[in-house]
């Protein structure tokens, strides 16, 4: 189905921070279209930079285009010392789609009203997934635009500006690089990083910290996801309970009828709020953890690249020694060694800078999201509290009678 979305500014929505600070280049995804499973993002750029042809323009992009951009950045030698913002994950509508399918199968067993409500819930879930994917793609671009070096990347500019389909370009790039470096990084594993003898305390600490933190945050992400899913299940059960209570009270003619009606109504109100609690928790907590898990992976990648550069340097040293021993090809070996050293030093310097600012960014983002989550939990709970109070004390006369009873402490005449 076609789902169009007009998005607000990402500042309030994203889990990341320090975005769009530089007014020279402002990027956002104001709307997106979902056709079957393909999402088409409208990437909108506003800029004062002369390197662009126009000051304000938009292009349509697909998820694969973002991946191409990410990969080219990763493959760029020059950026080896930078934390490349993690690639946005593929839009995944699997969960709501499966639930929609199940709902369709179970349609006969529920009332029309119940079915409608469940469908509404699922549509909301679908929309939430959609919003999330837009957000995460947007944040990726904004991380790039806020980065002093990456924002100047040529491929980035092409991505933003090129008004034709990028598919052809993507194919060529793939053939050129073959995803070589990316695969290497993937298969390299912590083993290589752990194996290198570290010369710098800072990086030694970072290595230990990042390796440990990564596994912990990955675990937390998975468990947060499970928790949020259970929460959604509870909210869904409220729908069924409300619907069943409604149909019972419709048939009932005794004194219970009113109670069932009230209870049905309450559950219906509560389920909306519970649903929101679940989705807020997902956005502020699960998404936060997920995003920083990927970001830490990106930081680990940086460490890996530096470790490789160190290994290269050590190899070049060995080669130089060998050359000296054989008294052959010494100048080349010396030159090679110098190159390796330079590269390594550059990576170390840049890496240190990046990792330090990453720390700060992470702390700020956690702070922002944890505060927001706590505030939302409190807000929703207060709303639910009010609803339940209302249900309990719906009758003004009863309230007065109660109050009088308490005050006079005597049986009502």
């Amino acid at each position, binding site marked *: 189905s076609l789902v169009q979305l007009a998005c607000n500014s990402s500042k309030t929505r994203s889990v990341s921070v320090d975005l769009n600070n530089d007014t020279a280049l402002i990027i956002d995804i104001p709307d997106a279209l979902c056709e079957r499973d393909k999402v088409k993002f409208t990437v909108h750029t506003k800029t004062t930079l002369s390197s662009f042809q126009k000051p304000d323009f938009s292009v349509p992009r697909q998820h694969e285009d973002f991946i191409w951009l990410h990969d080219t950045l990763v493959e760029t030698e020059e950026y080896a010392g930078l934390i490349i913002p993690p690639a946005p994950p593929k839009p995944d509508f699997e969960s709501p789609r499966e639930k929609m399918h199940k709902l369709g199968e179970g349609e006969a067993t529920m009332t029309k009203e119940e079915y409608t409500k469940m469908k509404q819930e699922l549509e909301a879930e679908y929309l939430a997934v959609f919003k999330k994917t837009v957000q995460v793609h947007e944040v990726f671009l904004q991380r790039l635009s806020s980065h002093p070096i990456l924002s100047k990347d040529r491929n980035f500019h092409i991505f933003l500006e090129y008004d034709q389909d990028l598919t052809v370009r993507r194919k060529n790039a793939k053939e050129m690089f073959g995803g070589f470096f990316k695969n290497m990084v993937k298969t390299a594993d912590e083993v290589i990083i752990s194996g290198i003898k570290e010369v710098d305390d800072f990086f030694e600490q970072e290595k230990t*910290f990042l390796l440990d*933190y990564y596994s*912990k945050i990955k*675990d*937390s992400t998975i468990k947060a996801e499970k*928790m949020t899913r*259970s929460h959604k*299940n*509870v909210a869904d*059960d409220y729908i*069924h*309970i409300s619907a*069943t*209570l409604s149909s*019972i009270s419709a*048939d*009932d*003619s005794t*004194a*219970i009828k*009113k*109670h069932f009606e*009230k*209870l049905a109504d*309450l559950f219906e*109100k509560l389920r909306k*709020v519970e649903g929101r609690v679940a989705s807020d928790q997902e956005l502020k907590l699960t998404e936060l953890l997920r995003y920083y898990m990927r970001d830490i992976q990106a930081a680990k990648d940086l460490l890996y690249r530096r470790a490789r550069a160190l290994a290269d340097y050590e190899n070049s040293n060995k080669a130089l020694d060998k050359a000296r021993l054989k008294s052959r090809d010494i100048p080349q070996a010396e030159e090679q060694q110098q190159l390796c050293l330079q590269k390594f030093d550059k990576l170390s310097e840049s890496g240190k800078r990046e990792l330090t600012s990453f*720390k700060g960014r992470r*702390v700020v983002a*956690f*702070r922002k999201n*944890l505060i927001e989550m*706590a*505030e939302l939990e*409190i*807000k929703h*709970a*207060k*709303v639910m*509290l*009010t*609803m*339940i*109070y*209302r249900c*309990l004390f*719906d*009758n*003004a006369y*009863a*309230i*007065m009678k*109660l*109050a009088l*009873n*308490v*005050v006079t402490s*005597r*049986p*009502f005449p």
Partner: protein
Amino acid sequence: MNPPPFPDTAEQEPVFSDMRDGDSDEGEDIFLGSSKTGAESPSVPQLNIKAETTDLFAEQASSTAPTVGLGTGGSSNGVQSDDDNDLFSDAHVELPTENASSSTPSGPRPAATFIPGTADMQTKSMEQLEEEEAKDTFDVDVAVTNPEKVGQFTPIHFSLHNVSHYQSSTIKFNLYLCFNNVLNNAIIPFHHYNWKLYLFLSAGDGMHAFMAYRVSTKSTLPVFRNKEFSVKRRFSDFLGLYEKLSIKQSLQGCIIPSPPEKSVVGMTKVKVGKDDSSSVEFVERRRAALERYLQRIVAHSVLLQDPDVREFLERDELPRAVNTQALSGAGFLKMINKASDAVNKMTIKMNESDTWFEDKFQEVENEEQQLRKLHIVVDSLVNHRKELCGNTAVFAKSMAMLGNSEDNTALSRALSQLAEVEDKMEQLHHDQAASDFFILAELLADYVRLLGTVRGCFGQRMRAWQRWQEAQSTLQRKREAEAKLLWANKPDKLQQAKEDITEWESRVTQYERDFDRISVTVRKEVLQFEKEKAKDFKFQIYKYLETMLQSQQRLIKFWEAFLPEAKAIA
């Protein structure tokens, strides 16, 4: 799982200031909510009674759960001074002080009990309340508490028979074993080294282990010896009581509450000594169900007068009830269905000028189906909430690990605090799941069974009618036979025929009277049942809503405590 903990009164701080929070974000103005009772200006009463209601909630919350007791259930609670209590001011629920957790989710309370007048006062006019107060106030309160295992692990003598080829010897051991009374003799294959040994277990004469419950009664009725007394009863005793009552009363059309079902699996685990949470949950579930069962019985005017009931409550040693097989869940259900099938399969349809019975039966059937559906849905909620509880606990641990790993001090502390909050949330979900189960799910399960019983009563009335009709047609046949004899002029057989007619005439009269009587009883019983049901549901629903209130209040407290920690991150 344990029943929901009763709230400590310190926690009763309802967040009134926010009730007027329009909160347009949520998409609805709370004051335009579903108030169906027309003339109501919500804002006025709330503003005026703000001060009182704060206390009100504190008292109400503590008083609706009978356990809180230890005194607050008594006179200090202004709300207790409810209409119902005027006549029976010294009647109140027995509050077991030792085992506070064991009777929180108690079932329907006989009308004359304690608080919470709040629940009762909701929808009644003054006249209605006075009317109720005048009738059905029975001054009997029962509670079922302190489930405890009775009986020792029986010393068992068993022989080891070595069936290896070379030796044949028997070794006697003493072994302490506890097993359920179904397995009186068992042969357990046992491998020891290369020998194949067989254990022959035979029960010693002595007690087998079983669960005993304390049944406490408080009453000022003169028919009891004392005002307060308690006895120890085991599960089969409850079943035995039901059997006795069924035999006596059900033929009259009485609605007899049914006891909880047998469960071999559940009880075996308990007896074998497993102390895990599912065993604890099983025992608590059974205890609560037994309590509700008794409370319903004593709330019934006819049953209360039955000597078997009094004996059950009062007598110190009760003879063991045997042959309670028929009363297992499946047996009971079969009995019910047979009775109500009789209604459906009747070849001669009852021609009733008053369609009340027909209509009512239909209503009962429908309601039973609906409640069954609702029970399934509530069960699903219970399971999902338990799942949520488990997943929250797992997440909390993971978050604690992450907090340890974090190198920024303030963030590390905040993450650890978050882990603690999630731990508290786990407890909250656990408690709410217990409420979902013990208050809602069990209520629905009870009434599905009770409605089945009601259906059975209709069936009995049917059978009474059938008997009457059959007697009438027999009488008709006898009369025709007499006429034939008259015509055929056989005077000796005629005498017999006349005697037959007289006999059947009286039977017809008898059965017609029986039918009328059972009709009256069934009608009365059903009306009474509906009244009790309405009260029961109302009470339980309010109790449930209160637990939901408490959950949200606790939740707010937890997160409000966390917020400054999150803000302290730097």
